[in-house]
């Protein structure tokens, strides 16, 4: 006999199911209940940096848009600082760094407005390229999928990003890079996520 390790086991994940909106975005489910729904404003009014919009689809293994997804975003401010007590540095008043969006029931399009994050310090003193962490849940997804969104106008930083560089298949790195375009004079980044098959997005075990 050996001694027993007294760790608990993590509660197992289950799918968020088709009605995730009721709990996490009830307005979208068709009713108002909370004084304040959470996750609608990532950056707040005081955040410095470039205001951007991010849009995309989540596409399943048949090539169809998934129309019942919820995504959450987690990002640093324009100086690469996260609003968290274990991070040195302050973020602007009202900067949450976190947002929650759902896909349109008819088209599957999702989008959120935020600011472009700065470069956060990675491990071993290596700066990371600007990125937004994303977490994707939906019916049919048993454990939430983690990925990262990078920006195509940060090619130089992306080339040395320590996380992108652990992906040994260089052609797969492109699945994490959002494409910039201008719409009515404002920057919009397109980021489609493919769950399965050709051009499958890279997902991480974080």
């Amino acid at each position, binding site marked *: 006999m050996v001694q027993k390790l007294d760790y608990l086991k993590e509660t197992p994940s289950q*799918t968020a199911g088709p009605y995730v909106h009721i709990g996490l975005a009830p307005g979208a489910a068709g009713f108002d209940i909370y004084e304040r729904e959470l996750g609608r404003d990532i950056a707040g009014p005081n955040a410095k940096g470039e205001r951007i919009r991010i849009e995309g689809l989540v596409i399943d293994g048949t090539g169809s848009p998934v129309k019942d997804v919820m995504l959450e975003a*987690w990002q640093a401010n324009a100086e690469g600082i996260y609003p*968290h007590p274990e991070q040195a540095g302050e973020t602007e008043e009202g900067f949450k760094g976190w947002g929650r969006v759902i896909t349109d029931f008819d088209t599957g399009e999702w989008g959120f407005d935020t600011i472009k994050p700065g470069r956060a310090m990675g491990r*071993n003193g290596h700066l990371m390229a600007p990125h937004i962490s994303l977490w994707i849940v939906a019916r049919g997804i048993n454990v939430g*999928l983690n990925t990262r969104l990078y920006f195509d106008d940060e090619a130089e930083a992306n080339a040395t990003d320590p996380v992108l560089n652990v992906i040994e298949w260089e052609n797969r790195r492109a699945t994490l890079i959002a494409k910039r375009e201008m719409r009515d004079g404002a920057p919009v980044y397109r980021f489609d996520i493919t*769950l399965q098959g050709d051009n499958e997005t890279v997902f991480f075990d*974080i």
Partner: protein
Amino acid sequence: MSKPAEFFQRDREWHPPAFSQDYKTSVARSPQNALISLEQTVSEITGPRFGHGDVTEMDRDLLHNYAKPGECAIGERIIVHGRVLDENARPVPNTLVEIWQANAGGRYRHKKDAYLAPIDPNFGGCGRTITDENGYYYFRSVKPGAYPWRNWVNNWRPAHIHVSVFGTAFAQRLITQLYFEGDPLIAKCPIVNTIPDQAARGQLIAALDMNASVPLDSIAYKFDIVLRGRRSTLFENRMEGN
């Protein structure tokens, strides 16, 4: 505050795999490539924080938070309570717990739910709260009904409450489902059975808790939630590299 340190590796054999044949929707929504494992960075070991300003007291009372004044949702009155802990058995204080569920007849208040069981005009079906300094939380609600779903043609979900928890880091983010002790549908459910290990499935079954029940008012179930544990910084881990 301790130095930033990593969370334990998630045990992917304890959680369900992405692809599970009998839960049909997973077939086209599961990645075929292996997940790429990351050494955690500040992006993973930090996460959003919520305060009491984000929720109200009423948000945890599903009997009344959508009811007309003086009225109440219909169904078996229950209390769901428990603690949020990490794998080191340490409480996770001040973390957001959100729930959603069907009404007593198994019908969701959602424009996409067309099940013929009726909507309860006094029941919304969602609640949220923040754990106290001991990681403790509680909700009041009605016990949800089972409902049919299009998987196999005669599949019925066991009574369940969806649960979403944040913890202190994006790496701890978790959504799961709570089931009720003794429900015979649990063993037949393809979603429950995506979890390979029987002990892991058991971890999702809330226990009837007579001690916490309120006599002549509500019956209680206890549901503890365990989030990923965090490694102690026994040796410098070079997270910041300086």
